[in-house]
């Protein structure tokens, strides 16, 4: 698995979900945090795709249920 730029990923979360950088931990999870709902999820996907210049597929979007999981998924590309 390749090393990914975790800071860049965290920035994407901060900007897409409009949350504090301190809130971005591995435990940050979809539908657990009030701001990470299904609408914000699509904004987040677009943000991550732009930041890393990748194109996530539909499986990735469903699997990406936490910050930890997002790191794994981005590392695949």
């Amino acid at each position: 698995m390749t090393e990914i730029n975790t800071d860049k990923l965290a920035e994407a979360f901060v900007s897409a979900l409009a949350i504090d950088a301190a809130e971005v931990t591995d435990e940050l999870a979809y539908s657990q945090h009030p701001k990470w709902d299904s609408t914000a999820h699509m904004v987040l996907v677009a943000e991550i795709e732009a930041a890393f210049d990748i194109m996530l597929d539909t499986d990735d979007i469903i699997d990406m249920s936490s910050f930890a999981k997002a790191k794994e998924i981005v590392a695949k590309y």
Partner: protein
Amino acid sequence: MQIDDYNNAAVFSQFPVYGLNSAEKQAFLQQRLNWLTHHHATHCPEYARLLTCIGEVNSPMCNIEHIDQVPPVAARLFKDYGLKSIKDEEVFRLMRSSGTSGRQSQIYLDADSAKLQSQILVKTLQHWLGKQRRPMLIIDAKETMQNKNGMSARAAGLQGMSFFGRNHCYALDENMQLRIDEVKSFIEQYHNQQIFIFGFTFIVWQQFIQALQSLGLKFNLQQAILIHGGGWKKMQQQAVDDKTFKQQINAQLGDVSVHDYYGMVEQTGTIYMQCEHGHLHCPVWSDVVVRDINSLAQLKNGQQGLLQVNSALPTSYPGHSILTEDLAVIHGEDDCPCGRLGKYFTLHGRVPNSQVRGCSDTFS
């Protein structure tokens, strides 16, 4: 396959969407639907009382030997009662139907049900769209999604479908009028790619296709796909049938394969997609039965009656078997010329005097 696997969502969500034959599907759904009947009888007092009316939880009706025998709940009961099998504090999302008059259905989801619904919806649509997300043209307004006061069925439909797209373009403004410049530049930018178009049937027809026609605008799309759903009542009022709808779309937009779908908020996640031969198909997680309007006796293939939908998904509310107010004809099982396994059917309107409530039909 172990019996326990039939009740393990992580296992059954991986079943091939249209890949189990009648006997295999019967083995799976019989286990799963019986489990759900008992689960809901234990956790939803109103549902337990309904079952008592037909003879206790341990009666043969509740331990069915064939999937056609599950006792259905009438769809309208979800309007009259807050039927749920979870505690109040476990409610993650409340979904409402799009009804135009009277009360709306209220469907309570916990986090697990919401997740399973999304997974199954994705699995089903991947069969039709592939895993790669496509540039997506949404025939609706962005504002439709922004009602925070409980999610409408239309918003939930748009939201669920938007997962399959990227670079989303909303074709309509907040007054549901064509955003012609945005649509033109979207199509210009992506005309060589397989564009995914989504919208509710009547909205696609009246606000998009007819608007393009009156402007005399045609496009030449390549291998695009249009998925639409939400009801035909308003289309029938304008005497537009499936064939005309498809012809006009191809005349206006070019090479677009057009697929209707049928689904309802009471069983979100389960959708019945229309194949190349015009048939709606049951995915592996669901099954249908057609019943006589008066006697509710099960009808044979080819006969028209009330549609009952059975689904393996609902755990947070007792909606695994629902008697709809839609009229349907089942045409066969496992033998559609398209090659997909499972039952296939067509819809023939709603029972007279039922409410208008399709996502497409509530728009005026």
